């Protein structure tokens, strides 16, 4: 029999054994360092205009080149990654807290509360992601707070569904039943029995949602509705590069590559986590194959 600690250690071992997961974890660790220390890492100021050196190709002085105003692309990408990560983490945290609260409550209580909450979630699901975000921007006007709210609202229903489905799976387990029979309060059961046991699927969903939150933030900023200048954002840098694609490819390529690498890392890490933390989600096929 394995103890709780044994299973934890083996989870880490399993994660580390998959090279793709390991590499994506290292990439994400580097992104986290950038997100914290962007200003210190940036070799130049983000708004240091240097017109004589505009549109310089990547070189030893400007590793990723300069833009149409002579600003250092590397410095702007680093600070933009920081802003992107802040928005993604805050908005997903918002969606996680609100969504899981709705989902767990609906799944644990059931009955009319479940029906009402899930119909509200269904209505939110009927709005396509970017459209809902645009509607929020239309109400509140563009900006960072709006972007966080918009992305948070968009991803809340997903966490509500995952939270509810997982709670339904755990609710009838003997240890929950036993605890209820002993007269334990609902709050304690939710905190000590339900939440820890549904955390696997939620962690996986968090990683995948962070990937999509980065993409959504970039799209909103690209459209001019997210982070506002002079604060650099990856989406807006790509938008501004449109007139210079042929003469200064680096202006378009590097901010986009930054988004691509971060999103890919979150997606691959999420997939790796799923294999370890949420084996039920791992295609039933693989399980069946092993039986054969």
């Amino acid at each position, binding site marked *: 029999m394995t103890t709780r600690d044994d299973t934890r250690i083996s989870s880490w071992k399993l994660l580390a054994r998959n090279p793709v997961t390991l590499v994506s974890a290292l990439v994400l660790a580097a992104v986290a360092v950038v997100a914290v220390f962007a200003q210190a890492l940036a070799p130049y100021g983000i708004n240091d205009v240097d017109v004589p050196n505009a549109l310089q190709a990547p070189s030893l002085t400007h590793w990723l080149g300069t833009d149409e105003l002579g600003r250092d692309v590397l410095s702007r990408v680093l600070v933009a990654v920081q802003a992107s990560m802040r928005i993604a983490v805050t908005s997903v945290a918002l969606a996680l807290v609100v969504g899981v609260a709705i989902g767990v409550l609906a799944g644990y209580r059931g009955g009319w509360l479940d029906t009402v909450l899930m119909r509200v979630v269904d*209505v939110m699901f009927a*709005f396509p992601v970017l459209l809902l975000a*645009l509607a929020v921007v239309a109400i509140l006007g563009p900006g960072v707070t709006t972007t966080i709210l918009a992305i948070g609202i968009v991803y809340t229903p997903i966490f509500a569904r995952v939270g509810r489905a997982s709670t339904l799976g755990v609710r009838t387990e003997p240890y929950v039943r036993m605890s209820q029979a002993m007269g334990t309060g609902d709050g304690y059961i939710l905190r000590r029995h339900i939440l820890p046991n549904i955390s696997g699927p939620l962690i996986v969903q968090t990683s995948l949602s962070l990937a999509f939150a980065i993409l959504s933030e970039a799209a909103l900023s690209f459209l001019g509705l997210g982070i506002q200048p002079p604060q650099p954002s990856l989406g807006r840098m790509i938008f501004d590069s449109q007139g210079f694609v042929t003469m200064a490819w680096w202006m*378009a390529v590097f901010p*986009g590559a930054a988004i691509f690498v971060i999103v*890919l890392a979150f997606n691959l890490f999420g997939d790796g986590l799923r294999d370890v933390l949420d084996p039920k989600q791992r295609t039933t096929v693989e399980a069946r194959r092993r039986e054969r």
Partner: protein
Amino acid sequence: MAAPTVLTHPIARFVVRRLAYSAVVLLGVAVVVFALVHLVPGDPVRIALGTRYTPEAYEALRSASGLDRPIVSQFFGFVGSAATGDLGVSFRNGDPVTVTLMERLPATLSLGLAGMVIALLIAVPAGIYSALREGRASDAVIRISSQFGVSVPDFWMAILLVGLFSTTLGWLPTSGYRPLFDDPVGWLRHIVLPAVTVGLVAGAIMTRYVRSAVLEVASMGYVRTARSKGLSPRVVTFRHTVRNALVPILTITGIQLATILSGVIVVEVVFAWPGLGRLVFNAVAARDYPLIQGAVLLIAALFLLINLIVDVLYAVVDPRIRLA
């Protein structure tokens, strides 16, 4: 014995239940869309008028949009008019919203369908091949490529494609739209890049679903039976496995089509494509609330309609769904 009425048929009952459910969700969507204009901090009419504000223009627009009436009467007026296809008039130019939306719909539909065709051309062969070669190097390559496709920002890919095929090579126009029936060649030249952008991303997502659909079927008992009774691998693959995987593939195609139609906003903006997406974007920038409301309602309704059709088709093909 009385003849069974149409409604006792399981499919009919399922359709009615799904219709009622969609109607409830659509009503919820209408509430949210209606609330949109009332959640705007400050006075939406004032904001929409901006620098064009005069007391007369303000009063005229306010009463034309019905915002001077009590809120309950406004809501029933909104839902009642929307049900008859009247979505009010634009704050900007006074044009009927329904007419504007219908003018834009063909461009979005043609882009969505062209993107879907490209997505299917990628996803079906790649997904089936990947599943049949499960665990081998070619499977890994396809799986990783599809992760790449899922992670690429579509607007970035669009700009790189324009930079390569339009600006540098000069093969295709950078942006714009020609109606299919007026100028078929011009339509094709203009739709290639936006459709490839949409299709590559959707194709990457769908490849994963096609792969797992085929794997799911391949592990079924009847496939094992077919193999063990000595049928050739070819027959097992195409007649037993792929054929049965078509049902889930159909579902994801429908869902993906709905997502494409409602999500082409950024691609339409990059390519100056005069569809619903760019209309919504411009309406948000201009704070044209009736137009935003109408477009959001139409797109959400389209989304629900396609999902409804997919569910019904699924129930027709797979009896387990409607009996569940």
